[in-house]
Structure formats: structure tokens, C-alpha cells
């Protein structure tokens, strides 16, 4: 039993609050701890699923089909290259990205960001269907 709950019960025992008031307070406390638990669960990093590959499938209406299976380790290794790009080149890349409307700083990528990115890729699924019947699917799996 937590401290707040004990205090409410003590107040009820001392006659400072009525049973109805105590019930309301306990309900409010229950809701509050529920919300806190949900918040904590949202902040807590998700467990890494057993995903190994990213799949990219393109099914064209003109029967041009593309099927690519990329190991996630390749993404990780590729991201490592950003730390080896000379600062001058990074500045050029960043300004080019900004020009194209992507306000993204490559210098701010840290190894833990890469891990989080890969972890979150597990839940990612992209399905695109164009007017002419082309289908693009991107997802991760084992």
C-alpha cells in the first residue's frame, strides 16, 4: 500500500473526511497512478524484436517487379559512416538537405539514435498504391 493511500485511510479513520470523499480520493489516486504507469510504459524503450531484414517490394503495373531484402546490420554500418565524413563535407551535406526542405543535422546522429531508429523500424510498415496500380511495400521482418 502506498503512502497516499495510507494517508487517505488515516484521514477517514480520524473522521476528517467522509467515506464518500475517501472513495473519490482513492479513485482519483488510482486514475493518476494508471496514467503515470502508461506514461512510463511509453517512455520505456521497446524490447528489440527479432527483426533482421528490411524488405522493399515494388509491384509495377507494367510487370516490373523489385524485391529487395536489406539486412538491418547494413543500415547500422551505413549510419556509422556518417561519423567518418569530414566536418566540411558534413556542412555541405546539411546545407544541401536544408535546401531540399529536410532540416536534418547529420552531425547530431549518435550510436544510440541509430539503435532506437532500428528498434522502431520493427513497427514500421509502408504501403503505397498509386493510381496506375503500382504498389510499394516497405516493412521489416525476420
Amino acid at each position: 500500500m502506498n503512502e497516499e493511500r495510507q494517508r487517505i485511510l488515516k484521514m477517514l479513520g480520524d473522521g476528517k473526511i467522509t467515506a464518500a470523499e475517501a472513495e473519490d480520493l482513492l479513485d482519483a489516486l488510482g486514475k493518476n497512478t494508471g496514467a503515470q504507469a502508461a506514461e512510463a510504459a511509453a517512455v520505456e524503450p521497446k524490447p528489440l524484436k527479432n527483426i533482421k531484414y528490411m524488405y522493399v517490394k515494388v509491384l509495377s503495373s507494367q510487370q516490373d517487379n523489385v524485391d529487395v531484402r536489406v539486412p538491418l546490420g547494413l543500415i547500422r554500418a551505413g549510419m556509422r559512416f556518417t561519423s567518418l565524413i569530414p566536418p566540411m563535407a558534413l556542412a555541405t551535406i546539411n546545407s544541401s538537405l536544408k535546401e531540399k526542405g529536410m532540416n536534418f543535422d547529420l552531425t547530431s546522429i549518435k550510436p544510440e539514435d541509430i539503435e532506437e531508429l532500428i528498434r522502431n523500424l520493427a513497427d514500421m510498415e509502408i504501403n503505397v498504391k498509386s493510381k496506375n496500380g503500382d504498389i510499394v511495400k516497405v516493412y521489416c521482418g525476420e
Partner: protein
Amino acid sequence: MIPSVMNLKIHSGERFKLRLWLPLFIIWPFVLVVLLLLLPFLVLAEIVLRLANARIYLFAIIGALFSLISAMQGLTVRVNNEKHNSLVHVTIR
């Protein structure tokens, strides 16, 4: 683990068919020998780059390249057109 085998399959209709099985495990010892032979030059280049404050780390680049090649194991690319019966299929294992 570094990739040991690469399969390459190219079909273009009924006229052209190519199927290659490339034993990469044979290439890696040669790459190692070449790297060892180049090592004195690489060390020299690294020293020059560091003295020039160029912030280009050759050995880090080689290490990253090695990890990139290692991570390629399992990569599959398949492009085909059923209408023209053409296919390009690359698998790295």
C-alpha cells in the same frame, strides 16, 4: 561474418542467360595480403593526413568499410519483368 558466396543470375528473354556463383571466401585472403602490402603506405598517409589536420581517418574508414561488407551478408536484390522474361537476381551469403 564476412560474406562467403555471391550468386548472380541474369536472364534476358531466351537469348541471354548468365548464372554466376562467386566464391568470395577465395577473394578475402588476397584482399588481406593486398592490405598488408599497402600497410606501410597507409600508415604514412594516415600520419600525413593527421599532420595536415585533414580529419580523414584512413584506418577508421577501412574498419567501417569492413563492417559494411560484413553486414552485406543476407542482402538480396531481385528485379524482374515477367512480360519480357528478364531477371537480375543478386544474393550475398
